[in-house]
């Protein structure tokens, strides 16, 4: 009993020291020298402790690693203290290109441009320099075009556990939502104009 409370505390400490890089279950098991199953049980308990109490942080899983983050509902407080969050927001062009890559990877630039209907060199450069996408090899055939795929930083940037967590692509967007989309688009544009 006593020992498992200690081990749970060590897991808490390990997640804490790992900061924004996070730590995975395997590393925790190595440090504690216990099995992965035991780590999972202790971790589950710890997650429950944080969920049930009124706490300032919570533990989230991103790209297989666990880390402490502050709670979303408290965001306004931290914004008063900290400089802007380290997350830059991506342009629409970059987001569209990234969405296509995320769902169709590995994919060449020509294929991305085919879907978007416009040149996509610049957004790809931006995404590469931010480390959100990377070259995944070369396509077969003549030209041997570069194939792009998403990286671990991509999962981190959007707070995803894994690629499986991406919502399924909407097969059919009904007409109602097109309108909505257009309205949304318009209001979004207005926002930028008002800045």
């Amino acid at each position, binding site marked *: 009993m006593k020992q498992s409370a200690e081990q749970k505390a060590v897991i808490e400490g390990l997640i*804490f*020291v790992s*900061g*924004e*890089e996070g730590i995975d279950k395997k590393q925790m098991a190595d440090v504690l020298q216990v099995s992965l199953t035991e780590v999972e049980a202790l971790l589950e308990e710890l997650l429950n402790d944080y969920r049930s109490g009124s706490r300032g942080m919570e533990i*989230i899983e991103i790209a297989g690693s666990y*880390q*402490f*983050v*502050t*709670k*979303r509902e408290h*965001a306004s407080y931290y*914004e*008063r203290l*900290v*400089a*802007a*969050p*380290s*997350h*830059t*927001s*991506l342009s*629409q*062009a970059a*987001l*569209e290109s*990234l*969405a*296509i890559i*995320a*769902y169709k990877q590995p994919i060449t630039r020509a294929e991305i441009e085919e*879907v*978007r*209907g*416009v*040149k996509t060199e610049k957004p790809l450069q931006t995404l590469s320099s*931010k*480390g959100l996408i990377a070259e995944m090899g070369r396509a077969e055939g003549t030209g041997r075009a570069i194939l792009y795929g998403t990286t671990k930083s991509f999962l981190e*940037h*959007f*707070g*995803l556990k894994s690629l499986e967590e991406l*919502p399924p*692509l*909407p*097969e059919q*967007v009904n*007409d109602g939502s*097109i*309108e909505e*989309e*257009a*309205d*949304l*688009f318009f209001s979004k*544009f207005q926002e*930028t*104009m008002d800045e």
Partner: protein
Amino acid sequence: MKYSVKIDAFEGPLDLLLHLIGTYEIDIYDIPVAVITEQYMNYIHTMQELKLDVASEYLVMAATLLAIKSKMLLPKQEVLDSDDQLDLDEDDDPREDLVRRLVEYRKFKQAAHDLKEKETARSMIFTREPMDLTSYENEEEALNPVANVTIYDMLAAMQKIFAKKMERVPRKTTIERQEIPIETRMQQIIQDIRTSGRKKFSELFTTSSREHLVVTFLAVLELMKTKEVECEQEDNFSEIFIYAPKENEV
């Protein structure tokens, strides 16, 4: 008229078409090509009137729309003759390829929108750097201070700083800072150029403050308009130089 400013906010011809389809409540699977072509051409013309650079993709799409429109006119007469409303079966429909592309693009536009929401949610949580655990290292490790670190990790760290930097204007300063009047910045730029003769465009952007960047950019545009400065760029994407107009130099 109120649309004229919107044009450059589109991500391309497909995006513009989707917007028109939404605005005019058009069924994407049964697009009235004549109407959409007319609206589309209106946009292109407005862009040209505003002397905006109309990207070639928009012109290619205009040509595609016109081609579809003329193809649609031909079988239509046959329809009247045979009195068969379903003459335009899917295989023959000249709109088919365009519809397929629009539907495909719309899916990813939605997916991009979903990603944006996730990004926003993520930006509302805060974290901290990993703790410095150097004090837990034993002597043997201290012998190799860079275990598991390569020069490329360092490069990656540098990239990360740059990625963060643009957004990292402390909010406190943002509130305190006075807005820089464009006129002031214009004066500064003119002074700069007088002392140094010419200046690299990139050298005008000395801070990462968005306000400063935007004001500087607008100041240069204004100075170009009033012909108080001239700009020169030898190749695409190469450095832009800004200098005083020739007659002023004499």
